[in-house]
């Protein structure tokens, strides 16, 4: 019998991260990235996968966390001033900004409660006065806007609308929900590793990989790095990642994913 687990709903990845940081009573400037990432992935794994839009927003952050995690393992990059750069710095800034607005939203809520007690009244304009209601001067209102201008504005509206619609996807009859779990992906990756011993990350992505699928594949690779199945090399940050298999992929089956 399954247990009904109910997850607290977070407004987004930042909300969840702040919660984890609070819960672990850790310093926001010194986030224990391994622990937090683990807990974060734990939560995401338990999320209702029905709403892919929501899940993918959380997955993007998961990828960021794993990216930071891997950077923490590498020698620190040095900026122009010769200072070591903390891979977490950008995330910390984002978290602090988000926290600030969250705080302000509570302040606003208090204000709203205070302001609620007042009543207003509808206009009660005496007949004699209402008779003088001015006409709108349309000529003045319209000013130098011409029909041609109106036409241009409408064309711009059309252009924007066209840009918003993804012409490829809009031609699909319906969009199939794609289930991408770490476990399934791991099986696929294992299969790939049996056939290829040395390859690039981008090679292993299938042609129509969705964003979510790419992220999950990346997560799986990071897991394999951690557990010592593969080694990776990357020449530049924008170069492809070279992956070398260093441990028998058959043993992957014994791997326990944090799910």
């Amino acid at each position, binding site marked *: 019998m399954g247990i009904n687990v109910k997850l607290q709903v977070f407004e987004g990845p930042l909300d969840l991260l702040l919660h984890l940081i609070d819960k672990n009573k850790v310093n926001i400037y010194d986030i224990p990235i391994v622990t937090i990432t683990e807990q974060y992935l734990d939560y995401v794994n338990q999320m209702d996968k029905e709403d892919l839009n929501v899940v993918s927003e959380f997955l993007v952050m998961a990828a960021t966390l794993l990216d930071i995690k891997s950077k923490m393992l590498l020698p620190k990059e040095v900026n122009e001033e010769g200072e070591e750069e903390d891979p977490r710095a950008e995330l910390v800034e984002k978290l602090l900004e988000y926290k600030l607005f969250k705080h302000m939203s509570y302040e606003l809520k208090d204000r709203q409660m205070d302001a609620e007690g007042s009543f207003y009244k509808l206009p009660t304009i005496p007949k004699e006065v209402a008779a003088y209601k001015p006409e709108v001067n349309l000529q003045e209102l319209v000013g130098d806007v011409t029909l041609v201008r*109106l036409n241009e504005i409408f064309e711009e509206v059309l252009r924007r609308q066209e840009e918003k619609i993804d012409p490829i996807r809009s031609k699909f009859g319906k969009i199939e929900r794609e289930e991408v779990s770490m476990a399934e992906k791991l099986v696929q990756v294992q299969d790939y590793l049996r056939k290829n011993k040395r390859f690039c990350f981008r090679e292993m992505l299938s042609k129509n990989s969705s964003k979510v699928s790419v992220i999950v594949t990346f997560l799986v690779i990071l897991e394999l790095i951690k557990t010592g199945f593969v080694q990776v090399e990357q020449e530049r940050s924008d170069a492809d990642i070279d992956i070398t298999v260093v441990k028998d992929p058959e043993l992957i089956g014994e791997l326990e994913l944090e799910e």
Partner: protein
Amino acid sequence: MNTDRIEAAIEAILFTMGESVPLEKIAAALEIEEEEALAAIHRLMKHYESEERGIRIIELEDSFQMCTSKDFYETLIKVAKAPKKQVLTDVLLETLSIIAYKQPITKMEIEKIRGVSSDRAVSKLVEYGLCKELGRLDAPGRPLLFGTTEDFLRTFGVQSLEELPVISEDLVEQFKDEAEMELDEELEQDVEVQV
């Protein structure tokens, strides 16, 4: 409640209601006797009168109403006459262009095109007399349909809607092509790395 507070409460009630309020109702809201309420109203009335205020309280058969003192009608007329600062903002122009080209159109369709709720913009255009309701769409919820007015034509100096500059099919196609091309480029980049 002391007498000052009763007066203030009555003032608040009459102000909010705007219309005439029966004495009975006032007394009930304050949980006091009608007599006590009446006395308080009378004190309040005198207060307003003696100070030559802009507001008056009048009595209408056991009901009371707060209204504007007649002395200031002249001033109010000036307020009413004062030209409102009216401008066609970007938002209004955009909404107007959609209504002009797509009429008859519902608010929902306008929202779909603009991607944002357009209630206020449509209301303003109707208030200005550039747009009007044309009837209701024969569909669930029977939503209102909007279109442009004769004043719209007059203001823009055209005889009929046919004179609106044409949006050619070509242009629409061109937009589609452009959008597709951009996407293709993106896809190509993706494919490149996969080879």
